[in-house]
């Protein structure tokens, strides 16, 4: 799947997008995996209350299943308008 990062999530992780293969069943499982990869991921995902997730470009919950999902995006709460 593709992982996308926006705003300060992108800055902390240091890239906007990466290809990532996983067996994680849910977003929460995926986050656990990512936290274990490197310090910059652990930092970016340290406070989930400050994060939002979109699955295939639809806002979702952290306990949503990943089966069939091709694009996961992590970002802070939106501030448009």
């Amino acid at each position, binding site marked *: 799947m593709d992982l996308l990062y926006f705003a300060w999530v992108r800055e902390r992780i240091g890239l906007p997008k990466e290809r990532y293969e996983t067996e994680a069943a849910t977003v929460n499982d995926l986050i656990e995996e990512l936290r274990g990869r490197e310090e910059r991921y652990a930092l970016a995902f340290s406070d989930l209350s400050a994060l939002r997730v979109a699955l295939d470009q639809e806002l979702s919950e952290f306990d949503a299943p990943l089966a069939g999902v091709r694009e996961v995006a992590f970002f*802070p*709460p939106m501030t*448009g308008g």
Partner: protein
Amino acid sequence: MAIRVVVQEEPFDFGAEAEGFAAGRTDMGAVVTFTGVVRDVSGTLATMEIEHYPGMTQKALEKIATEAEARWELGEVLVIHRYGRMGPGERIMMVATASKHRGHAFEAAEYLMDYLKSRAPFWKKESGAEGASWVAAKDEDEDALSRW
């Protein structure tokens, strides 16, 4: 009922958009516009940079506009939102609603703004004399959704 959603980097012509919106229609008695402008709160803002999620932005805005259409009697809805770099006083975005009834036009415009603030994938970063920082979402913006 016509929905128009525009996401673009370049400035938009607010006067021309306002003039053209629902122009000539004889069945809409009420038109409301809202415009968001880059505000220099501290007096030290140099630029505001707006990042967005290209694959999702247009869809998210269309979804919000479609939900507004389902809730109120609207003849036309327009949403324009910029991304990229802009300076103090520049217009960031606008929404416009046209309805038979002024209450519907006002409510729909407020609904569009409340959802756009918290559900459309835009993020603002301010740069100025004190460095650069991401604008934090306000609890009140999330709370505003509960009234609908």
